[in-house]
């Protein structure tokens, strides 16, 4: 993507509803097909098996929803951005909707490296949808934040590894409740490494389940500023798509 002539575009999209059960790779394929259906002037990689030049941000776990997914696509010609969100959304599966577009500066850093933190909103239950009290959870969350470390142990390549998540968790608070239980908002660092919300819950209490997960934001921190990825390397005005 970097250093190419042409028309790089950054797209923000949501992944909501049944379609949350498809994988990151499936989402990528769905976008490639949508771009073909809309006959966008895609740039292709060189080599034996040319692929469209599309690069995605951080993977979203299967089953999680999101309002803040991003991808960069390299086009060879300029396309009108005001209709792009609608066109691509129409060609995408139900539940994947483009919510914003921007013409990207040349040599913009890749999403994977640029994004520094992500925010989640999760509904917390016990095993088998057992109800967890909001107050009870609030106390556990505050206690966890007060601790100097939040260790979790996981098996990696057959070895038990203990990691401390405390430095990854930036903020965490019970903010709401839905039909299944209390809703926890949290923001997690992604650099130098990140973690999944389920790991954070495990570090708080091994019985907590992330029954619903919605990624609400991604952030790029650069030179003291905190930027939404569409704004970070824009070379045009950010176009917000109207909700369908």
């Amino acid at each position: 993507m970097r250093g190419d002539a042409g028309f790089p575009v950054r797209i923000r999209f949501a992944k909501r509803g049944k379609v949350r059960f498809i994988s990151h790779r499936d989402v990528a394929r769905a976008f490639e097909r949508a771009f073909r259906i809309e006959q966008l002037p895609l740039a292709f990689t060189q080599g034996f098996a040319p692929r469209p030049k599309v690069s995605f941000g951080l993977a979203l776990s299967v089953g999680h929803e999101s309002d803040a997914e991003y991808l960069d696509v390299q086009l060879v010609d300029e396309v009108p951005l005001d209709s792009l969100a609608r066109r691509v959304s129409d060609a995408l599966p139900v539940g994947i909707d483009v919510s914003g577009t921007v013409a990207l500066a040349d040599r913009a850093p890749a999403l994977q490296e640029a994004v520094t933190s992500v925010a989640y909103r999760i509904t917390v239950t016990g095993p088998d949808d057992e109800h967890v009290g909001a107050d009870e959870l609030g106390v556990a969350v505050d206690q966890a934040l007060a601790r100097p470390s939040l260790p979790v142990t996981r098996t990696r390549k057959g070895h038990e590894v203990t990691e401390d998540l405390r430095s990854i968790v930036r903020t965490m608070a019970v903010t709401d409740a839905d039909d299944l239980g209390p809703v926890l908002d949290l923001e997690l660092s992604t650099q130098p490494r990140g973690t999944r919300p389920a790991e954070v819950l495990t570090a708080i209490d091994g019985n907590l389940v992330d029954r619903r997960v919605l990624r609400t934001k991604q952030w790029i921190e650069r030179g003291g500023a905190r930027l939404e990825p569409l704004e970070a390397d824009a070379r045009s005005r950010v176009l917000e798509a109207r909700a369908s």
Partner: protein
Amino acid sequence: MSSLWPRIEPLLARVEKPARYIGMERGAAAPAHRPGDASWLLVYPDTYEVGLPNQGLQILYEILNERDDAAAERAYAPWVDLEAELRSHRVPLFSVETHRPAGDFDVIAFNLSAELVYTNVLNCLDLAGVPVRSERRAADAPLVVAGGHCAFNPEPMADFVDAFVIGDGEEAVGEMSDVIGAWKRAGRTNREGVLRELATIPGVYVPALYDVEYDGPFIREVRPRFDEVPARVDKRTVADLAEWPYPKQQLVPLVEVVHDRLNVEIFRGCTRGCRFCQAGMITRPVRERPEEQVRTMVQDGLRRTGYDEVALTSLSSADFSGVDGLVADLVNEQEGSGCVSLSLPSLRVDAFTVGIASEIQKVRRTGLTFAPEGGTWRIRQVLNKLITEDDLYAAVDGAYSQGWRRVKLYFLAGVPTEMDEDTRGIAELARNVVKIGRKYTKQASCTASVGGFVPKPHTPFQWFGQNSVDELERKIGLLRGAVRKSGVQLRWHDPAATFVEGIASRGDRRVGRVIERVWREGGTFQEWSERFELGRWLDAMAAEGLDADWYVTRHRTADEVLPWDHISAGLHRDFLWQDWQAALHEHGLPDCRWTPCYDCGVCTDYALEHVVASPVAPAGGSQGTGQDLSRGGDTPVEFLGVREKASSGAR
């Protein structure tokens, strides 16, 4: 009818590949289910990834949903993890579109593409809450229907299926839907009435309306129980493919599936006459789709789906009239529009084919597949797979010389008259192929893929006693020894699975009890090697008092009543027997689409004709020319790619 989604959704978090169960494909219908509509649940009894691409199911799905008095949805066999969740939470089998309970549909219709899925059919019915045995079903239970190639011997599944459709379903499905809609609007009460009415539709077989009389282990007679029920059920055949340009809205799945590409059927039927090939025998005559329609379907399909690959499908795609011109045009048309690739599955073995392949795979020449099927010319005459060694070697030489590095060869083991010399011939051919390749590249490799032969109903080999598991294993052993240190990779199909396919392939109604027993013991997904167990089948055969060898390895005689004799693919029994005798005498039979009719029975009985744009065979080898096949090899070999280069200079 209500959606089960709120109950299914929490279960999906606990299973692998949950996207198998959400539907949402581009092209999927959102059926309204108006009161009085005949509602069909079309089930492919295997995983979503295997079942979704099935073109037969997609064609019927569209045809039904285009009607204003029917609605069709789809379901696939839930994998064992979801099955356990469904059972423990008492959630029934559901459709993927609206997640309705399977038991709420008027018809549950199965595609039977392979014998090893039979136990999955029972499992799906059970998960739907429908009794697996037809006789146990309440008057208002959904009707259980099945079609597909395996329906040509419906008997092993006769106890479980209310009505089979034999042959092409495009027309029959509408006629059935009329009858089923009327049954529904009358309150779904008179089950025998609707079944008797369905039995009067040509191509529909209702097994409960037939009595089977035995004579010891043999069948004496299969007799209809009512006057209006036909003594012989003839297959349905769509005379002109041009009238059925389906699927118009091929489904585009959200997850990766097998054959994940646009598929355009360019012709149906094949008269190459390979004697082992049931598909070629039961789909006669050849019906080509008009070239113009193929082009339109390719263009519209790519535009609509966003796929970057299109396959031109048939039983032998290089036989399509003018295929070279069509392929050249499609490749040129797509060149400007974003890297679309073209593929032609089921290619025959000759230089013409390599020429087409070189046209298609201009850059990435990795692997090319041929199916000589037999290791010696003698056995290929028995099989009527009339490829000379010179043809094969010329094709392979062409492939390696034009940049391909890997050649894959398909063979059958355990075919009639096979001797060890023929088996070893497989290794010899493959070794010679490697030698040819090494002339061009050190990396040349050849994979020989060997399948155990299962005799199929309605073929000249239907009388042949299949090889035992031991015999097939011995032959594989011979081959393993013969390819050692030769650069040939040998792959083979599990002889135990081949044996069980043999039980079901030529089984009779009594085999149904075995299928039920295997299913009750937990034997689902039997075509998945990790789930297959020969012992389960042998135990079930023994428990039901049936002799597996009697069904599988025994040669049948001319006078034996075969379990499928009351089902007709249009092929005269005399023709099949003569062709069987010709096979034993190593006599080949030419392709009747380009040579005079030998009256197999299909065209004459059903008043059909081949629909073929070109009256002459394609050039390029013994298989194409209809020339003196016993000599072979003297046909001038011409490469499409090379010829173009010569006329247009460097490319």
